[in-house]
């Protein structure tokens, strides 16, 4: 399973629809402080089923919806789509017949999130399991948040062991 594209609409500072094409190898993401780099990669964790708003640096999940800026009014919904190339057929049945899997999460203000895979509504758990099967997911140790290195160093030994459990 390969990750090919991430689309964001109304997610945090990405008011308008933004498409990131994920290619092989090393892609750098650059820009000034506060321009939205961390927001961009948070969208990836969010669409993979992150259930904790604290892991989104927020005090409530609605805070991931674009809240407005100087000229623009806030929005009432946010949507992120992750497109997976499944030509190697490594997805779990019954999703494994499709060449392409589109995973979408949409949140409506005060109405919670809805998940879809190839247009069909599924539960958060289904999305989390899909990615867990592919050795990834919102809590993958390969997704290193800004400041997480410092947390790992300061962590108590029992907290660090949780990292090992992700590997097992």
């Amino acid at each position, binding site marked *: *399973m*390969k*990750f090919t594209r991430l689309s964001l609409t109304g997610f*945090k*500072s*990405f*008011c*308008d629809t*933004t*498409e*990131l094409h*994920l*290619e*092989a*190898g*090393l*892609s*750098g*993401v*650059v*820009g*000034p*402080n*506060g*321009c*939205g*780099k*961390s927001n*961009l*990669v948070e969208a*990836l964790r969010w669409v993979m089923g992150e259930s904790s708003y604290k892991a989104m640096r927020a005090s409530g999940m609605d805070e991931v919806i674009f809240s407005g*800026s*100087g*000229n*623009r009014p806030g929005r009432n919904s946010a949507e992120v789509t992750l497109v997976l190339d499944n030509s190697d057929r490594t997805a779990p049945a019954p999703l494994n017949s499709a060449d392409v899997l589109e995973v979408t999460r949409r949140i409506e203000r005060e109405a919670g999130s809805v998940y879809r895979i190839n247009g069909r509504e599924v539960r958060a758990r289904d999305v989390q399991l899909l990615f867990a099967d*592919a*050795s*990834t997911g919102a809590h*993958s*140790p*390969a*997704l*290193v948040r*800004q400041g*997480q*290195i410092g947390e*790992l*160093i300061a962590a*108590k*030994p*029992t*907290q*660090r*062991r949780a*990292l*090992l*459990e*992700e*590997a*097992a």
Partner: protein
Amino acid sequence: GRARLSEAFDRVNAYFRELFTTLFGGGTAELRFVESDDPLEAGLEIFARPPGKKPSTMTLLSGGEQALTALSLIFAVFLTNPAPICVLDEVDAPLDDANVERFCTLLDSMRKRTETRFLVITHNPITMSRVDRLYGVTMAERGVSQLVSVDLRQAEAFTDRA
């Protein structure tokens, strides 16, 4: 259960020792279970000795040394079970130039060893020069983010000069 965790520990530890020595250009390090004989109860302690130095507790290591040690652990876990995607958000911030070069060389080798796609967020010009492509995030309109492709040669002019 217990056996699986113990086996994961051995595999991670093997990678950890190798990666530490690679990133530091020498020295030794290892992981140990502490506080309990039962792997399901024990904590994970890191013992690190940079090249030419006496072994010391993690707290005495410098900011950059601690970051490299933590990166060795994170990549060791990664190699044990490679993910299709890896995102690193400003992990090079505390590193000096020589260590950033070693970190980038390690990323190169990961890229060859695995099918993983890497997204590396950085402010560091050396890292920018060593990735395959650059995406820029801007806020030309205040409070609204936009994604642009950045020519590797434009990178220095583009980035960071808000």
